[in-house]
């Protein structure tokens, strides 16, 4: 058996070469002990497979095999002599993994990019725990990190959302994938957990949150009983009857929590890429770079895992979506000039029809024609296709006829009718966009409803919430409004008011209400309304709340910053399936003086002591006139004089003893 293939893998080297000759083991198993490196890593990776034992092939190696170096399960079972024959005939093994990048220009020179990855696991053994030492587990493209967590916590469905930024629904239309893949600002997590009772489900939920917190380097571990809700109308799994229960005496629990405005950063993207079999080094994921993703105006990272069963065979299906919206001109400008500098005088585009001088002028509107490459937006080119997957990587552009989209493979340019391109082999790919009129874009789907929520009131002891719903369409919208508020907002549901121009009543709009009041430090307020909003109307719901005072130690270090309130979720059921979130809110509570504990304890105790002591004194003692009191005090020797006389007597006695001793 010959050995040693070396991949020299650097961005600047256009040609990657691989000398592959033989493989011992049946399959290429993603090796978790190998450090996959960060997204930014571009240095060469050397992988060696030894002659006798090469179980640790890195996945990167697998994805770069030539079409001629074929692998099959049969390889290992056959004798060594047959190998040459099989190599020539058998197709390369393919794994259930699929990836696609969709690029869609939006109005005002924005561009939406959607990275979609789908994968599924091998068959699961029902009823066998991961911890059983003899259980044989085999991971192909499904991340090994995730599967034990799901089994240990008996999670049947898992949904994670990391979202940040504002989606401008008025001009950009519907959220990508009808909003089903993006959360509210911050981190959102919900799961369907199998358990025998609610307490067990909650325990599983907490350990799930803690495990994911470690996996994604985020503060998901801050999810606790104060933030957890059990949604009743929202977040329902699409096909409930098909959800498997491994133990028939158990039940399924839908549990959800969100961390409002939790910062999302590069360290959250890296684990996302690590879950992919390509690790961000091949295929479309090679474009993903933390600087570019988190520079965008809006981005959303999502993971959905589902358990699907056919008979006794169950599999995990996972969808990992990374969505972002960025402003093309500013991204290009940043690529050209990483450090912004003022423009040169001749580069300024002044509107000379308006008043101007050599220092100030009105700028011209942005140019309508544009021409740019994808590599300029993302800083890199697409490094080949994901070769282990069943389908080659795809890149699609959703554009109107005013746009011309080309793909360049090496130095050759191609175009297609539907602007969808297949990324092949190990070549560097780049996409070229050209347009005469950037305003002419593929018509975005109109959002079926606009919802905005705001805080009212000015004091720090009470306030109100006001939610404005606007239905721009010609059909009545049926939707569910979900809200989870922290316990220190003491909500008065009786103050619910509806304002509308057309004189609607509350009963016309709110068809049913689910309300679970908050318990201090134990449960958030959980509110769900079934709404029916008539066509072409806007209406506002408002309700009042009181703010509680927290204990001294319960305030965060920056207490005066305020408390983040998670976004409300609106799930549209009719006329289309659509999901959206309102923005998060910042609630300011009144704060005590944090430097006062000792003073307060002392002052309050003083007043209490003063009142009690004086009363006790009056009730226990006898009233006498001052003359009598004086007389008594003069007739009766005080403590001091008595002590003095006592001491002098001792002294005298001691002196006597001394004298006696001397005499002896």
């Amino acid at each position: 058996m010959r050995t040693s293939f070396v991949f020299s893998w650097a961005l600047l080297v256009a040609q990657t070469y691989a000398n592959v000759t033989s493989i011992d083991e049946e399959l290429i198993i993603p090796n978790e002990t190998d450090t996959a490196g960060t997204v930014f890593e571009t240095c060469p990776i050397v992988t060696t497979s030894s002659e006798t034992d090469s179980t640790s092939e890195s996945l990167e190696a697998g994805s770069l095999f030539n079409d001629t170096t074929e692998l099959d399960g049969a390889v290992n079972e056959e004798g060594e002599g047959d190998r040459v024959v099989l190599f020539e005939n058998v197709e390369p093994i393919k794994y259930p993994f699929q990836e696609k990048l969709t690029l869609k220009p939006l109005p005002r020179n924005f561009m939406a990019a959607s990275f979609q990855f789908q994968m599924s696991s091998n068959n699961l053994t029902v009823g066998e725990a991961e911890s059983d030492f003899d259980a044989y587990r085999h991971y192909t493209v499904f991340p090994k990190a995730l599967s034990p967590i799901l089994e240990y916590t008996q999670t049947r469905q898992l949904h994670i959302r990391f979202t940040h930024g504002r989606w401008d629904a008025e001009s950009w239309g519907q959220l990508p994938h009808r909003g089903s893949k993006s959360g509210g600002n911050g981190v959102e997590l919900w799961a369907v957990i199998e358990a025998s009772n609610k307490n067990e489900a909650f325990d599983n939920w907490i350990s799930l949150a803690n495990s994911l917190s470690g996996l994604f380097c985020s503060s998901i571990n801050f999810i606790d009983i104060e933030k957890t809700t059990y949604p009743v109308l929202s977040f329902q799994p699409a096909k409930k009857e098909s959800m498997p229960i491994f133990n028939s005496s158990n039940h399924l629990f839908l549990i959800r929590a969100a961390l409002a405005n939790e910062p999302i950063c590069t360290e959250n993207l890296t684990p996302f890429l690590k879950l992919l079999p390509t690790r961000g080094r091949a295929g479309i994921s090679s474009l993903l770079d933390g600087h570019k993703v988190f520079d965008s105006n809006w981005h959303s990272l999502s993971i959905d895992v589902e358990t699907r069963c056919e008979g006794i065979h169950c599999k995990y299906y996972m969808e990992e979506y990374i969505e972002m919206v960025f402003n093309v001109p500013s991204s290009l400008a940043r690529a050209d000039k990483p450090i912004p500098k003022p423009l040169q005088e001749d580069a300024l585009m002044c509107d000379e029809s308006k008043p101007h001088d050599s220092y100030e002028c009105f700028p011209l509107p942005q140019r309508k024609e544009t021409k740019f490459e994808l590599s300029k937006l993302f800083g890199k080119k697409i490094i080949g296709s994901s070769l282990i997957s069943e389908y080659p990587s795809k890149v699609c552009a959703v554009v109107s006829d005013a746009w011309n989209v080309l793909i360049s493979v090496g130095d050759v340019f191609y175009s297609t009718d539907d602007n969808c391109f297949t990324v092949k082999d190990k070549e560097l790919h780049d996409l070229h966009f050209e347009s005469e009129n950037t305003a002419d874009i593929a018509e975005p789907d109109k959002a079926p409803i606009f919802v905005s929520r705001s805080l009212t009131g000015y004091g720090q002891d009470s306030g109100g919430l006001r939610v404005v719903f606007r239905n721009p369409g010609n059909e009545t919208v049926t939707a569910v409004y979900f809200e989870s508020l922290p316990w220190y907002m003491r909500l008065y549901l009786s103050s619910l008011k509806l304002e509308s121009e057309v004189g609607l009543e509350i009963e016309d709009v709110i068809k049913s209400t689910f309300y679970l009041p908050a318990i201090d430090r134990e449960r958030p307020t959980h509110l769900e309304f079934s709404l029916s909003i008539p066509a072409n109307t806007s209406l506002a719901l408002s309700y009042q709340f009181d703010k509680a005072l927290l204990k001294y130690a319960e305030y965060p270090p920056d207490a005066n910053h305020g408390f983040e309130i998670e976004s409300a979720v609106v799930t549209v059921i009719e006329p289309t399936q659509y999901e959206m979130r309102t923005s998060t809110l910042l609630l300011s509570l009144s704060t005590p003086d944090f430097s006062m504990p000792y003073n307060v304890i002392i002052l309050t105790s003083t007043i209490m002591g003063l009142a009690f002591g004086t009363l006790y004194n009056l009730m226990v003692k006898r009233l006498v006139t001052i003359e009598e009191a004086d007389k008594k005090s003069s007739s009766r020797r005080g403590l001091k004089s008595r002590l003095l006389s006592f001491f002098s007597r001792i002294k005298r006695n001691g002196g006597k003893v001394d004298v006696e001793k001397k005499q002896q």
Partner: protein
Amino acid sequence: MNLRELQVVAACLASRFGASTVFPLLQQQLDKSVEFSTPVTSYRSLQEGVFLIRNDFPLYSGGVVHHAPLLVALMSAFSSKNMVSLLYACADTMIAFQLIAMAKCFSRSPLPSWVPGALYVINPLVLLSTVSKSSVVFSNLAISTALLSALQGNSIIAAMAIAVAGYLSLYPLLLVVPMLALLQKDKLKTVFITAATLTALLLSSYKINDENWNYLFSTYGVIITFSKIIPNLGLWWYFFVELFEMFIPFFKAVFNLFVVSCIIPFSLRFHKQPFYAFILCLSWITLTKSYPTLGDGGFLLSFVPFFRPLYGYFRYSVISTLLFIHVTVLSPIFYHLWVDLGSGNSNFFYAISLVYALGLATVLVDLVWAMLRIEYDKGTPNLKLKMTPL
């Protein structure tokens, strides 16, 4: 009942009902002020309870309702706003009337019987408290009914009334001790009736609350454990905000003991003046309770006219008057500075709550001192004599 008394009662009803109907926004303003409303007495939480009952939501599963179940059930029977205003006005008028009736019980008093009632009517603290529709009015009514019946020797009604007061806001239950001193006979029977009434009330609450005992914590547990920390005029709130976590259970026990501490000593020391002992106990509770309002303070101050003969002995009357004025003027201002404007901090309002406690304490000490003096003088005031406790 003579014409003057009738006028007082009519004025009371007219002023309460008139203020509520002419200034409907005043109610909401006052209900939001910390001086007149607390989580356990506020009208908006009562309204929330009525709303929850009408919509079949759980009433005491967390949330903001801390009123007794029967009170919520009673309020849910009233649908019109004016009816509710009338109910509060009537309850307050009853108190005024009972004050007049109490004054008649003291035949030797130099005071015309209508004066305590009239002072009650013009007492702004009580007026504003009623307009804010604080449920303090109902427990005050129960207390004054108990006191009047005990003075008249009607032990059954007194016992039942004090049980109702205890049922509505817990701490007035302690007043059963001075009330026993007030009643000449049937002491055991009174205790028994009080216990029986309270049990009946609690059991019927249990029935009305879908056979669930969870209302006990939401109503009485909240009062004892002070679990809803909202600023008020009492001594508790800032103490428990600032206290270190591990000491909190201990100090909650201490504060509760503090409420109980003076009840029996007052009743024993002044058992010869039982009415007076009753008022002392009431003011002690007002000083030390976890969720006090100015409504409690106003109610307490309306008993001061009964002690007309003691006025000469008061040592700090100027100071306590100034302290009360200080509190009523500065407390809304300081609270506004802290919570709305942010130009002051919590210590401003805390200082006011200390001053209020000090004001009540000086009144209490003055009353005790004056009674001890008049005891010494055996009923004939000799103001020239200088005395000291020894």
